[in-house]
């Protein structure tokens, strides 16, 4: 059975084709979900990809959360569907209150496009179920606003509930507690700043992101089985 992954497309999104390509290389079926449509079209998993949704001239993701598709994404997440936000997608999920906290400007006040080493902290998520705790994955970051912040209580919760999904081995952007990615309480909504799709082929310098995309496809398969 081929699982179907929906890739949300806002005006200004620019990583949608990359995510689609990487998913399809792994045997998944990826289709674009237009931001103006209030539906997830029966897909088995959703990726909110990177880019600059609606230009991000305002706070990142602040406008995207109001696109009709986000209503459907919220319902999908609430029903346990796997949702992953990558980079700008992570920012959008935070703005949409599907994940706690926010992403502010990098500590160095410069855009950073560079490889980052990530330590997997939990495997109880739709993005890491095929990885092992302690794995170090080399996956590129590509952002200006990737400096994760949240209040103390949220941080305590994230730690207590083991919801920090990946941490930077060498923090590049000032993120609180070296956080590179987090999940919701159920583990079915994950946001991370690094781009797994950019580490999906040895030709590109790393294929460490494949284990994440495979995890997502596995979660999508489970979802498809349940909903069938």
């Amino acid at each position: 059975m081929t699982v179907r992954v929906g890739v949300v497309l806002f005006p200004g999104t620019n990583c949608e084709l990359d995510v689609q390509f990487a998913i399809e290389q792994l045997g998944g079926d990826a289709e674009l979900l237009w931001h103006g449509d209030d539906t997830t079209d029966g897909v088995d998993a959703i990726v909110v990809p990177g880019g600059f949704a609606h230009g991000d001239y305002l706070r990142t993701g602040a406008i995207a959360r109001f696109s009709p598709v986000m209503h459907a994404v919220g319902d999908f997440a609430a029903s346990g569907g796997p949702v992953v936000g990558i980079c700008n997608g992570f920012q959008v999920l935070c703005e949409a209150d599907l994940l706690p906290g926010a992403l502010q400007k990098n500590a160095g006040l410069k855009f950073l496009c560079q490889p980052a080493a990530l330590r997997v902290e939990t495997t109880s998520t739709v993005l890491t179920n095929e990885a092992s705790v302690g794995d170090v994955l080399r996956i590129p970051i590509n952002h200006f606003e990737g400096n994760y912040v949240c209040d103390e209580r949220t941080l305590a919760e994230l730690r207590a509930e083991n919801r920090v999904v990946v941490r930077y081995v060498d923090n590049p952007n000032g993120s609180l507690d070296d956080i590179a990615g987090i999940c919701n309480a159920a583990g079915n909504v994950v946001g991370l700043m690094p781009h797994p799709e950019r580490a999906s082929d040895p030709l590109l310098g790393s294929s460490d992101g494949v284990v994440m995309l495979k995890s997502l496809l596995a979660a999508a398969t489970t979802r498809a089985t349940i909903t069938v």
Partner: protein
Amino acid sequence: MAEPRNEQSQRRGEEALHRQLGMTDDELAAVVEELGREPTHLELAMYSVMWSEHCSYKSSRAFLSRFPTEAPWVLVGPGEGAGVVDIGDGLAIAVRIESHNHPSAVEPYQGAATGVGGIIRDIFSMGARPIALMDPLRFGSLDDARTRYLFEGVVSGISGYGNSVGVPTVGGEVVFDDTYRGNPLVNVFCLGILPKERLVLARADGPGNLAILLGSATGRDGIGGASVLASASFEEGDEAKRPSVQVGDPFEEKRLIEACLELLDAKLAVGVQDLGAAGLSCAASETAAKAGAGMDVDVARISKREPGMNPIEVLTSESQERMLAIVEPRNVDAVLDLAQRWEIQATVVGRVTDTARFRIYDGLFDAVGVPGENPKPPIGDQPTVGTSDAPPIADVPVESLGDGPLYHRPIARPLSQDALQGADPGPQLRDKFPRGADLSGELLTLLATPTIADKTWVSRQYDHQLFLNTVAGPGADAAVLRVKGTRKALAVSTDGKARFCRLDPRTGGRLAVLEAARNVACSGARSIALVNCLNFGNPEHPEVMWQFSEVVEGMSEACQALGFPVIGGNVSFYNASGDDDIHPTPVAGVLGLIDDLQERPPAAQLSAGYDIVVLGAIRPELGGSEWAAVVHGLDGGMPPVADLESARVVHELVAGFVRDRVLAGVHDVSDGGLAVALAEMAIAGEVGMRVELNFDGCSPAEACFAEPASVVVCSVSPPESAAVCGAAAAAGVPARVVGVAVGDRLIAKGAFDVALADATSAWRDALPLLMAGPDEVESAVPVARVKRGPVF
């Protein structure tokens, strides 16, 4: 309809209007002759921008025909929005390079940003999806606070626009030289990919078809940019020209890209043209002229950013993110729907006629109705003459705007050229660094010069990975992009060393082409096309025209010899501060094709235990080298010999080695010479080396720091090095194993001995130190010789 052209200004005692607009008296006379009457103010404004140096190439056109432009794989050559080549598998590649020098000198962030935006529009107006940018940049010395401001602003502008619009910046170069202190160079190269059948030209074919303006509203920004900024020299205090710089909106452009590619996929447009220099005047008249048609434009229809804009402002505005699509009347609704989906404005603003005239109306469509808004449009298939009672406010032969004057400007070899060439730095440097002198400090100094030093500070601000094509990115000899869905890959490099061109422009022109092609060869590709950006001083100086003519000749010779055509280019004159022209700076962008990419090409690095092989002839050529000119201030002499035939052989040899997967690492010798090439490979490979650099006719210093053309360093596993040298010898290329990668020191017997860690920090920390200050650089080892200016 004529309004008095000069009366008002003359009554006020001002300079005549045409001169205010940058036109000469002779040019005005030519306009009067063309029209058979005095031009209106609007007409004069349009001629002034269209006949500007920037738009008309009036000083350079006569020379550009020397370039070889043909090859069986060329689909579109020079003169269109971009050059296009066929790469097989039903795919084509569009490439273009442009300058945005003067806007960037006035407002670095927006100047660079809109340079990126403009070149991207050129690419997708051909039907290609833009997938890669490269930025050849030139600045003055970083000792200067204003230069640091310009450098930081330009890099931020490229980053801010390119990252957001979604086109990765996969390479480029940054060179620092005092010649650019008052006039930095910001060149932008863009590459796009398209299915061959989507190729579209900027032609307004078919009288009755409609011109739809897509994208941003038209504002007062960028008015006269082509004539005011790009076609005049720079003076102090030119910040006053800031209103002539446009402001970019990458989000608008991103939506325009998607909308335009969708409408071309759906075959809804017969032609597309971007609005760049000279704005709508250029786009509308050029598309019509190319199709041998005419065009009527209604200024009243054009969406404006502010009230009270007059037709001159509307027609010459260079507001960004605008495209003109030529659409058959039956497709207008579909185009407007598509634009609405992408939230971009789309308005019918004109119609194609068979009059061969370019006519501007104010209210034409009010009188005759607008297709798309009127169920039974009275225009379209109807004859188009006389459908409005209102007379045009401009009416000129459409071809005359694009058919600007052609100048054969005086040419003179500078009187100082002989003295310059005679000032060979060799003897002085031989005295100062006799055989046995310790060159360790010289090497560390070179590694920390901003031109040679690590540029990660720049490249990590650019998204260089989007689209998952980037097999080799910034810092590699050439950027390598895989072509998804095929086994092919593209290799691209931009290069050009002005100091060589200053010493001998013809040789310098050759060397620019050779270096770019050599970089492409190091990735295993064969070069298939070149675009060039020719940055020069004031063409009214005969010496500058001599430099220009010689550079064009040298580049032509090199392209001819290496067997690839020039498929596009850009000329930027008036790069000067006051009367000081910049050094002649041609930038060559070479596109190469790899037919079967099986793995990542070898990087520019050494591998522990592997032999180090030098291919090519090492000669004591110090003229124009970084070591002589930058470190020792000796900037005379002759540039390295540019032997085209031996270059061709070396390129083929190296590309063959890479294709056969014989090499573990490869890097060409350029800035800083052989010693710097070796050190860069050692730093990248995180391993030391032990070598002997004895070459006939060279002192150790010359062997280390001369910059001979067509030399390549290879890292080869010991069992294979003999075969590599043998194959090279068979091809007539000198080759020898100079040593081995080992340990944690860089040791060249009788020349230098430095710790790998010191070399690494000298190279890696130089730019961050200069730009941020030592406090912000982790584990910074201060390099004594790096001068730091005041923090701004």
